[in-house]
């Protein structure tokens, strides 16, 4: 919708007075809620729904308020990009840049915490599998589901982390390129940042959508969930039947 508006109608494009970069404000108006929503969905996939831990422990406990805070940090970090054209001094410009990157750095912390949670749940699942067997899943349905959800959430946040780091890195590097490169070279092209950013945005959105649909099948599709539960029930019944038949 916003992309269509930016193609069809005139949109505000401002020049960053410090870096000289052309900044399309419309894109940041789109990216900020998008970053919020994608982060929120990523976090909501695997949260500890019964946790009321205080904020100091919320990130460690994966409580629901983490989703709000983390998504808010990502949105604020993106909004900082739209403030660059309005800065008057170089110091303020650098302050905004540092604040933006610090806010963005929470995604790396969350990535690590998600990885730790996945490892922990996977170890719990592995302990349920008897030795000398070829089973890959335990027999606790809820635990298996938790491991799968944790894996999906880790994949989602890893996808966001890689794509958005490339986008943020592209923006940062392109902010300095016009000052470093020769004026007639491609690296000094004012369109370079926009084109690369658009390509990375496409990769991010398409890949995230594919993964989000897999998450839907994994978490929210009741028919698929029922089928998996029936499969667990079948395994239980088979084991009991075999044992009672001896």
């Amino acid at each position, binding site marked *: 919708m916003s992309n269509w508006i930016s193609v069809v109608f005139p949109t505000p494009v401002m020049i960053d007075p410090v870096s000289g970069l052309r900044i399309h404000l419309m894109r940041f108006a789109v990216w900020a809620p998008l970053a919020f929503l994608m982060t929120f969905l990523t976090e909501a996939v695997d949260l500890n729904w019964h946790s009321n831990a205080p904020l100091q422990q919320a990130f460690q406990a994966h409580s629901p308020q983490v989703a709000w805070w983390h998504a808010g940090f990502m949105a604020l970090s993106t909004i900082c990009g739209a403030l660059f054209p309005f800065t008057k001094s170089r110091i303020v410009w650098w302050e905004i840049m540092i604040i933006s990157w610090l806010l963005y750095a929470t995604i790396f912390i969350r990535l690590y915490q998600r990885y730790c949670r996945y490892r922990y749940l996977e170890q719990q699942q592995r302990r349920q599998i008897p030795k000398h*067997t070829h089973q890959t899943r335990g027999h606790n349905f809820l635990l298996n589901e938790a491991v799968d959800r944790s894996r999906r959430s880790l994949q989602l946040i890893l996808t966001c982390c890689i794509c958005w780091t490339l986008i943020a890195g592209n923006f940062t590097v392109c902010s300095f390129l016009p000052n470093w490169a020769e004026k007639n070279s491609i690296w000094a092209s004012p369109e370079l940042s926009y084109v690369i950013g658009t390509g990375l945005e496409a990769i991010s959105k398409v890949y995230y959508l594919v993964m989000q649909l897999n998450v839907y099948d994994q978490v929210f599709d009741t028919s698929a969930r029922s089928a998996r539960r029936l499969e667990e029930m079948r395994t239980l019944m088979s084991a009991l039947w075999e044992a009672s038949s001896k």
Partner: protein
Amino acid sequence: MAPRRAVNKIPEVSLRHRRRRNGPGESSDPPVSLSVLAGTRAPVQAPPLGESSILSGSCSRLGTDTYSGSESRTPSTARKSKHSSGKMKNTTTAAVDYSSDDSGLLSVSELGEEIDIDTVDNMEMRAVPARTGFSTEKHDCNSSIGGMNADKIPEVVIAPTRLESKGQLMSDDDLDSVGQFIIKGAAVGFILWIFLMANIYLIAPADSYEYLTGTEKQATWTLIILLFATNTTRIIPLAFQKNGFQFSKSGLVGTFMWEAICSELKRLLFLCTHNPNFTQLEVSLSNSSLS
């Protein structure tokens, strides 16, 4: 395997869902699960109590055979009883060896290498002797069988798994919470989008409005078509799945979309190769290679 005892009496055994002292971040009423080690010595994790009658029967058998004649034991936690002998040790492993002996009852057996007590932290079974005046308000009774010798009623208390007690394992009820939570987030995201769009149009100077031209316009068109194609081929079939609209899964829509994307990419490439900046890059590259 520990020797099984002949069961003459079937004491009444009730399976109780022991309510733990929960912390602020823990579930107040988590489901109960039990691992049953069948004759194949494969642990089978059953669904929570109350969801399957099969599990209730298994648990009852467990309690019947395990605690017959061992009613006088003191309450013992799993870890304490690790060092004790006899059946209490077996109960700590929280596993049941189902065997078709003459009593036809399940018996607790030593789990051996299958699950070590130090590693069993998501499953705990505790033996608690019968007590008079047992408060049912503090304990949820899930099932009971038998009906003999009420004075010697041992109680098998199956504690919830540690993960479940922390609320880390999502139950079916939690799925509704997820849906409402995501709707709230989507609403906040939509409001944020409207707010930012309005502010940008208000704050931006009037002379800063431009049409996209050249490479930027081509890149944006390519992005729009790519997103449209992706959404069409993935989301629309999902949306119409229950209505039987399977036509969009046939690949025709996706094929046409990819044709459009390829043509746009071709135009973009043509535009880039005729861009003076790219021409300059080619010249600089050729000069550097010659030198």
